[in-house]
């Protein structure tokens, strides 16, 4: 199997492109996910991803063909609407944020399923591959899809790089950020928009149900290796990239396995390794630190 993967990577230009763009996607979601994690907004990504489905279907119904860019615009609009609705519900009622997230996520997903079944039942042979959006099938992407996704991921990484300092300040000291004249509202909005964009471009590869994992798992794994935001972002990006590559390669050589679940399982393995061996907060490290401390105390006769 490894040999087959190697072969696919070396000799199939299409696979190379898919791998490259999934890698960029992994980096983008690792980076954005790190900020989301520290802002305690990880599960918003889950809601946005589920909510994107009706957006994709509506866009498809409007243009009548599968054109990735238009579908992504629909997804982004629905995702932004979902984040806005979650905020509005928590602000105007006594319903708590977790209930609001859960509600928006499931109702939007339900609407998406209604639209999806309508589309597939009336489809004239051209089943349009819209159901690939549910679990993600990177291998089924066309060349233009790959360019769109890779390009968008590249832009997202660039913006995150440029705004790194401002966001860092915003997360760790919002009061100071405000006082030093940063326009906090604008930065927040920009962040939510980029988060939605990351989710949206990832849907093609990972699918709406599992996209949240790609935001959460790499960033939480990175926390076990470092306390510095800069290194965290880099490590999370790296883990995201590796999971993306591994998921795509396994799904290319296997028959019928969707890419999304494979990417998530790979990321979960990275998490287990980080959780156990992480240099900063890993289990082994904690246990040894504890043992060293007790021995130290014993030596000093306390």
């Amino acid at each position, binding site marked *: 199997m490894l040999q087959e993967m190697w072969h696919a990577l070396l000799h199939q230009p299409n696979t190379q492109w898919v791998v490259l763009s999934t890698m960029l996607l992994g980096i983008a979601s690792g980076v954005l996910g790190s900020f989301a994690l520290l802002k305690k907004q990880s599960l918003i990504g889950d809601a946005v991803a589920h909510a994107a489905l009706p957006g994709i279907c509506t866009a498809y119904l409007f243009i009548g063909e599968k054109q990735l860019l238009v579908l992504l615009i629909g997804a982004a609009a629905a995702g932004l609407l979902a984040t806005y609705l979650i905020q509005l519900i928590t602000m105007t009622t006594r319903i708590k944020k977790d209930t609001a997230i859960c509600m928006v996520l499931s*109702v939007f997903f339900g609407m998406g399923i209604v639209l999806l079944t309508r589309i597939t039942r009336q489809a004239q042979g051209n089943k349009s591959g819209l159901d690939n959006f549910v679990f993600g099938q990177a291998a089924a992407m066309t060349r233009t899809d790959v360019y769109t996704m890779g390009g968008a991921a590249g832009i997202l990484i660039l913006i995150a790089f440029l705004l790194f300092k401002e966001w860092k300040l915003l997360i760790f000291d919002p009061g100071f950020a405000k006082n030093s004249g940063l326009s906090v509202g604008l930065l927040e909005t920009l962040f939510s928009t980029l988060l939605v964009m990351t989710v949206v471009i990832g849907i093609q590869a990972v699918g709406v149900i599992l996209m949240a994992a790609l935001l959460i798992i790499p960033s939480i794994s990175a926390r076990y290796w470092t306390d510095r935001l800069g290194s965290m972002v880099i490590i999370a990006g790296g883990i995201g990239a590796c999971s993306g590559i591994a998921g795509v390669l396994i799904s290319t050589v296997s028959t019928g396995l969707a890419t999304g679940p494979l990417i998530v399982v790979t990321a979960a393995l990275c998490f287990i390794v980080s959780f156990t061996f992480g240099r900063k907060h890993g289990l082994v490290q904690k246990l040894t630190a504890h043992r060293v401390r007790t021995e130290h105390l014993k030596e000093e006769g306390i």
Partner: protein
Amino acid sequence: MTYEGWILLTACLVGISCGMVGCFLIVRRMAMLADAISHSVLLGIVLAFLIANSLNGIYMLIGATIIGFVTTFAIQSLHHAGVQEDASIGIVFTTFFSIGVILISLFAKDVHLDVEHALMGEIAFIPWDTQILFGFEIPKATAMLLGISVFALLIILLFYKEWKLTSFDAALALTLGLPVTLIHYLLMGLVSITAVGSFDAVGAILVVSMLVVPGACAYLLTDRLSAMLLYSCIFGILSAVIGYYGALWLDASISGSMSTAGGILFLLTWMFSPRYGLLRRFFITA
């Protein structure tokens, strides 16, 4: 009973059982655990199928309940080990769900346990799969849901006071010596059982909306837990019935339509609730 009658009855039972259980999730701020459990239940069902090699409801119930507990336990352990709560939920359910999907596509492709069925349910098939119970021929899924609803109702009635206290004042409940952890896991068990009971009807994912949305509507209408439970059941039944006819009219997925109906009902309550509605807020401030 007619074909349509069975479907409506089953859908209403989903609404009732999910509605009741969901109320407690909302007042305990554990809605996201419903999301987590209903995703990972899929893994339990697949494992039960692979081990027992049958699609019998009992095995599924056992498998799903075990995985439900494992999910809750894993989330709590990660949380105790220092992982932020939302992140630990996110890690556990996505991983379990992925493993479930991979296992289905590897081993269970040709049985009726295909991924689409698992996601969206297929309530239209329920009336065909029947068994004899007390001399009546009744669909298996309906019988199972009936049992689950009665069981959930019994548990809630038996421990109503305890549930109420642990939900609203966990600290007091703990000092009074109530088994808070036990009640927590009992609720999680109920969520898993309800999720798997509703699995045939609405699928693993859309059960979340049946669990959370009716309770949220009820939460906007009353301050009393008992009334909230009742309203939640009514909203559950309404979403089921409106959803079913909506799906017939649109020729679309029944479960998706039930979830959409729930969303519309919530929108209406949100606007017009006499106490907490947007309209009232608008007129009071204006």
